[in-house]
């Protein structure tokens, strides 16, 4: 096992910069997720670690060893990096049975037939596919094939495991189950995992740390709670979970805010000097409460109610400002006039 260090990585594809300024240190045994919208450079980053893509600039080290450094003319090909990888399309070889698929990395290492099959059986046991070794991939379900891919990556005792949206081809239920299995597996084996997804729930359920990316650059690195509660910028706040952005003007004495689009309703809140006079008040739907209509608060009309079972999602229109609110109970219906109460402790500004 080993950590991974990416230093100042940059990747250009004929003029287009897919990844830029990327620095990240991953500790041994850590579970780190690259999260970001489609096309933000997650796969490119992962494939630079694997060695399928050579970075334009910067260096990649696995453990103590530098595996990519164009400035120093160092490039270790993928087959010499001892990395396990699980592909989105499983990439289980259709012409080999499950046992041969899983044992293949050991065959390359010239491990004796009997030993490698024994080890393969053990790893199959680990991913709950014991006894399936003689089957062929087309006889397995998508989830089972994904586990074969996991087993094949695990068998070589890799320094690092890379997973590129490994669950995106599975149905919702199986996806949920596999999340926990992968996490479980990581705890048991202690392998370092770098995981790519654009599904934030997946990222939050599994990761020790999340790296939020946009347009090829890192937006924030942090633990799940940090990313959710203290987003580093507007992009992260918007991308992770739901959030309301409400344009406000700060009062002269900087002790309150006026909501511009809603008749300049005043909210008492001490605003730090460095934020300027015009701010974007950001607040998550669950940090807002709705109460019976009362003149002294911000008032709005319920324009949409969606019942999700565990929560009820309201869309309120206060003047020109739309506000999403999530409550536990269904207390109001469309057309109701309500007061909107913010939890000021949770305010964020951008």
């Amino acid at each position, binding site marked *: 096992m080993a950590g991974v260090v990416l230093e100042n990585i940059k990747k250009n594809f004929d003029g287009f910069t897919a990844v830029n300024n990327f620095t990240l240190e991953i500790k041994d045994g850590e579970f780190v997720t690259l999260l970001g919208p489609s096309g933000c450079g997650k796969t490119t980053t992962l494939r630079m670690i694997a060695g*399928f893509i050579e970075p334009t600039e910067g260096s990649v080290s696995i453990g103590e060893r530098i595996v990519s450094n164009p400035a120093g003319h160092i490039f270790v090909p993928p*087959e*010499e990096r001892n*990395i396990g990888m699980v592909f989105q399309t499983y990439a289980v070889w259709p*012409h080999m049975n499950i046992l041969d698929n899983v044992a*293949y990395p050991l065959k*390359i290492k010239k491990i004796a037939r009997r030993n490698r099959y024994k080890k393969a059986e053990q790893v199959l046991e680990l991913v709950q596919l014991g006894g399936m070794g003689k089957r062929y991939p087309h006889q397995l379900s998508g989830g089972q094939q994904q586990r074969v891919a996991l087993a094949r*990556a695990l068998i070589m005792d890799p320094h690092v495991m890379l997973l590129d949206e490994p669950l995106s081809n599975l149905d919702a239920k199986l996806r949920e189950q596999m999340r926990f299995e992968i996490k479980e597996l990581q705890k048991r084996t202690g392998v370092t995992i770098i995981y790519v997804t654009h599904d934030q729930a997946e990222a939050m359920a599994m990761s020790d740390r999340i790296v939020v990316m946009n347009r090829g650059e890192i937006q924030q690195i942090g633990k799940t709670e940090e990313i959710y509660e203290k987003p580093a910028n507007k992009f992260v706040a918007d991308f992770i979970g739901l959030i309301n952005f409400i344009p406000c003007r700060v009062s002269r004495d900087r002790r309150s805010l006026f909501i511009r689009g809603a008749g300049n309703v005043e909210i008492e809140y001490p605003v730090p000097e460095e934020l300027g006079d015009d701010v974007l008040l950001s607040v998550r739907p669950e940090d807002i409460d709705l109460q019976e209509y009362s003149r002294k608060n911000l008032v709005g009309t319920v324009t949409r109610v969606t019942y999700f079972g565990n929560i009820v999602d309201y869309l309120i229109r206060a003047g020109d400002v739309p506000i999403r609110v999530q409550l536990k109970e269904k207390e109001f219906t469309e057309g109701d006039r309500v007061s909107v109460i913010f939890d000021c402790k949770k305010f964020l500004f951008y």
Partner: protein
Amino acid sequence: MRTSKGDVVIIFSLVLLAVLVVYPLGSLILRAFLSEGEVSLDNFSKVLSTRENFIALWHSLFVSIISTILATFLGTVLAWIVARTDIPFRKKIKTGLMMPFLIPPFIAAIAWLQLIGPAGYINSIYMTVKETWNPLFVIYGKWAVILVMTVSGYPFVYLTTLGGLERMNPSLEEAGQISGAGTFRVMKDITLPMMAPTIGAGAILVFVSRIANFGIPAVMGMPDNYYVLTTKIYRLIDQSFVIPDAQAIATAMSMFLMIIAACGLLFVKFYLRGKEYTVISGKDVQPKLVKLGKWRYLLFAFAFLVILVIVVLPVIAILLTALTRAWGLPPTLDNWTLENFRYVLFDLDMSRRAIRNSIFLALSASTITTLMGAIISYVVVRGKMKSRQLIDFLASIPYSIPGTVFALGMIIAWNRAFWGRLNIYNTIWIILFAYIARYLAYSVRTVGSSLRQVDVSLEEAAWVSGSGWLQSFKDIVLPLIKSGLFASWFLVFMPTLRELTISVLLWSTGNETIGVAVYNLQEGGDVTSSAALAIIMIIVIFAGNYLIKKITRGEYGY
């Protein structure tokens, strides 16, 4: 209302197919089992027991198998180079390697004869330079046949393998690499085994097309008395006035030919196609090209050399011959002339007739097959009845069996007068009939695939708005499948224009085709005129290919 019209179409299609396909093939099969008026296996035993006949069967298998092995090897290697390595000018090489498909095999054979034959350019240059009477090498008979069969046959494997490699999910190879396997280990353990059924399918197509080929063994083998099934059948028919039983033996031989070809095609259809791995690509992965480093230019040179030797040199050889005053003179500038072109285009009645005939045949065959193909594929795609499969099956038969066999069936079926005076034998119509039947499959397939993209609801919308069946076919379906119709027309026009195998058996004086003219001139020793006519043909083919590629935006053509 609609069903009754549909029935009319089905009956019409079935009658047409009965006349064009079932009748000639039925006659052929019947004839093969008939000896002195009785049903027997005599004809077959005559093939197997007469050395001269049996040996043709053996030769056919021998040259086809050897050239298939060589072509498969060549095609696979070239496909891998083009699909998986970073050689320079990859796109150009990719197209260049398909060009042998455009050169008719018998013309390739003539060209190679002029290149490497005992009196060919390479030997004459060698003998002139070395001032010797001994040629550098003598390649003729079976090895010459194998050589030309290989170089004109590899594109089948090249194309199918290239397609397979391009469709293959690159993650499969990457998974091998990340497991620790180097480039060549991945190739051996993953790429090759996964491609095996696809390569196998390509190989069998090569084999079937080789064993069915007439032009190459006719040009390269017959002068050396090296006979294969197709050329033997041709000889037997040619001499059926002299040799007793010739026709009966030829039919029995054609049965062997047909069965071998059919076995190959059935094996592909029912075994290999099922084995092929459906390898869908992931969304964000393109095949990774192997960085060849210093090998880059070596492999490029190899691919380039293949194009040079297989396409460029033969065409140059035949062009030189066409430009030379007389065959045998050194092709130097002062011996150059356009006289040969003038002669075949304006002087020689036979070649002028042949050009007229071939254009007539190609125009009518492509127009008629496209119309028929539209109707039949409409029944096939839209129909729900059992008859649908029957029609599809019948329409695909003539293309699946060797041209020589089908032509023989036509001879046996139509070699008589009907109702006292209707006799198409020895007229141009028998060739036209044969072409229509043989190339119908092209039309049904191309038009069918474009028809499949037209949703039936579009038509239903027209019926609902009150237009009749024919009206809606004309207003809705035809415009939508226009490009398919066009492609079908062209795909029939091109091969019929250059056709030899069928017409060489069915022609008669006055009804020659260009292929027959080129072949007869070559056989008769008028090599330069033959070359001039061949060059004209090649120019038309390449121009036509370019045109269809441009118009269909690369969907058809090479």
